[in-house]
């Protein structure tokens, strides 16, 4: 994870196209300017960044499923829960599962676990739009970085 760059996902651990599910991993950095404010002397990953982590895992799931045909933009967060503190150095397992799709949107359910323990969960909704200029290449680079490049046709 590089919190300051909103790069929340390190690797895709598994991707199940038929089951429409992605499991990704991320290690919380030991140090970050984020922790200087949240909170001084008591570093905790903010809930809003855990939400972003679930959104990015969901986004990669949708991009892999649609093979980069449309860009998912986060438009809704429902039922977000943060059950335990997430602290520097912890390894996160992020699961994103497809929930529902329709004309121009898709919905997912996402969870974050630390050592098997559920620490966060949310239902997320995305608008699926044509890619803005140049963004497709950026997303292809990110998809490749996390190890899902083989899911995208050349």
């Amino acid at each position, binding site marked *: 994870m590089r919190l300051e760059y909103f790069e929340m996902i390190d690797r895709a651990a598994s991707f199940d196209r038929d089951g429409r599910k992605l499991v990704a991993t991320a290690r919380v950095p030991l140090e970050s300017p984020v922790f200087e404010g949240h909170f001084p002397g008591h570093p905790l990953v903010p809930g809003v960044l855990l939400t972003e982590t679930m959104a990015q895992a969901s986004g990669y799931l949708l991009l892999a499923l649609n093979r980069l045909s449309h860009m998912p933009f986060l*438009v*809704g967060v429902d039922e977000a829960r943060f059950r335990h503190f997430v602290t520097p150095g912890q390894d996160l397992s992020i699961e994103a599962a497809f929930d*529902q*799709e*329709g*004309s*121009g*949107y898709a*919905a997912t359910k996402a969870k974050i676990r630390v050592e098997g323990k559920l620490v966060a969960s949310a239902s997320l*909704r995305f*608008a699926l739009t044509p890619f803005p200029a140049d963004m497709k290449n950026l997303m292809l680079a990110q998809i490749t970085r996390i190890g899902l490049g083989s899911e995208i046709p050349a």
Partner: protein
Amino acid sequence: MSTFDTVADIIADTADIPRDQITPESHAINDLGIDSLAFLDIAFAVDKKFGIKMPLEQWTQEVNEGKTPAENYFVLKNLCSRIDELVAAKTA
């Protein structure tokens, strides 16, 4: 509950529009001011409630190409007829 009442409740809830302003004659865009993002929220809730997939993109394309008047899809009584057709097609 009728299709209209169900859809009107969904619109009131998701788009924050007073329920009594929503009538079968209301045009979702021109009268109620529902924008494309709010429409996605409404489509999500309607799809889930009725177990259908409203082809919003197809409808929008038809309207933009002049093949179908916008009223056919976006006046609520007509929208509800389209929903009823999709439900009937699903169960047929």
